[in-house]
């Protein structure tokens, strides 16, 4: 398969960063080394040809029972070129740590907080990595596959721990 322009550019600058690439269903996807994300994102953003100036989405997927277990997915969009690029990181740590993209995009702030809240992925360099959807005192990260769907941790009402303060 021929390499895409983004793939070529990254290969030129960071030769060992891209681990794999595919274009399943027409979505161009690169799997890159986990510690290279900040550099690669900066390259994608600042390269005058690629111009991936928009961080569209950031999320994670928990493939429990598979090696590696976690995938962190970034979707970049280039508004001038009308192209979309999906970049994935893989990690088998129980609590993966990746570099934060907050220096490059403001929107990474909320997206990373959400990813931390629901998946327990740590973002190194994030200014305020706290829970966003759930509340202080919630134990566990609910979107992980090993968190039971109906495991409730109410603050008040039936089943509430009496130690909570309101």
């Amino acid at each position, binding site marked *: 398969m021929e390499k895409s322009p983004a793939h070529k550019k990254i290969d030129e600058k960071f030769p060992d960063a891209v681990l794999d690439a595919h274009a399943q269903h027409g979505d161009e996807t690169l799997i890159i080394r986990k510690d290279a994300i900040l550099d690669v994102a900066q390259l994608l953003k600042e390269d005058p040809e690629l111009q991936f100036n*928009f961080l569209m989405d950031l999320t994670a*997927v928990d493939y429990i029972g598979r090696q590696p277990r976690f995938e962190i997915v970034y979707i970049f969009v280039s508004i001038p070129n009308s192209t*979309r690029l999906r970049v994935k990181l893989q990690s088998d740590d129980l609590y993966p740590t990746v570099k934060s993209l907050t220096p490059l995009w*403001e929107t990474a702030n909320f997206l990373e907080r959400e990813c931390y809240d629901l998946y327990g992925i740590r973002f190194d360099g994030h200014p305020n990595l706290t829970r966003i959807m759930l509340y202080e005192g919630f134990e566990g990260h609910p*979107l992980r596959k090993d968190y039971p769907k109906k495991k409730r941790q109410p603050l008040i009402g039936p089943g509430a721990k009496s130690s909570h303060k309101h």
Partner: protein
Amino acid sequence: METKTKTPPEEQFFFTTDEPEFKTKEMLLNMGPSHPAMHGIVKIAVKLQGELVMDADIEIGYLHRAMEKTCEDCTWNQATIYTDRLNYVSPIINNVGYVMAVEKLLGIEIPPRGQYLRTILSELSRIADHMTCIGAAAMEMGAMTVFLYAMKGREFLYELFEDYCGARVTTNATRVGGMPADLPDGWIDKMHRALKEERKIIKEIDGLLTCNRIFYDRIKGVGVMKADDAISYGFTGPCLRAAGVEYDVRKNFPYLVYDQADWSIVVGTEGDNFDRYLVRMEEMEQSARICEQLVKKIPDGPHSVSDKHIMLPDKENTYGNIEGLMNHFKLIMHGHGIRVPSGEAYQAVEGGNGELGFYVVSHPIEGEEEDGCASRPWRVRVRPPCLHLVAGIPHMIKGDMVADVIPSFGSINMIGGELDR
């Protein structure tokens, strides 16, 4: 008119005296979670110096209802009902986005008639969305009449949705592989009548607000989000276009049959509340144009794929013969259903508030599904436009007056269901 530059707060004080009794202390004010102008539930903590907003922090998550987790327990078609409840002002757009992502995974394309129906219904939803946003935002500034007019306008659209799918708000108007039904008789005439009414109401709202001195002065130059900041904050939709960036998923990444109609992207210049209002007003007109053009071109033929592994059989077959009954059974029973090959797909549609993306992953459950296909989603990620817009609120309101928080917040049209999922 010049837009307001954000001067340091000390220079913005209206009194010049240095008398110590005129100095105010910084005050922290919580707006929300339950506040008349917080659509749904969100908390803005503002730090005030007099009436000036020095700093703001926003807390979300009060409507987190685990939509993404719940979808993992549903079959592919069952998950559609949860997408209704994302942006509940324009639910059909959400339905369309989700089923298109699943269809991308399946590698199928629905027949043209189905695509036309989806496009028309999406655009009608967009009118309802913008109308609700403008009405609610105007009401919060005191223009109750506009709200009542907008609600009247929305009723005409709700009647159309109800005629098509039986529900006013939570429509569930798509299926993986097509549409649940064809248009009912007389629907197109009714749509024309409804659009005529919409135009009348848009004109009335326009007359009440656009050149209204009070309204103009209240929102012009307030809540400014410049293009660079808007891109950095991930703004999409009307809020990004109001800042002058020409980005619309319908044009940049065309889907369905938007290329069959003649319409244009609406772009503002300043990125303030007034531009956001104008963009929304003009987008309603553009959506109405799209509907009117496409409705003339709807081709004949089926509205759904004929693949028996994907679409339910017709009712007469289900009740009338054993093949239809078995087909129905195989698609509905636990552990059967639509089999989607493993993989991942991202499909974005232009929602009411911006790019609404669905990142859907199909991954077979180990030990249960050996054919490499899955009968339920492994992961449904929604890229919510609202989350990014709400994240930008502190930037928009910093340096403004406390009373400007309400129009700024109203202009981004926060929808709780989509924000917190």
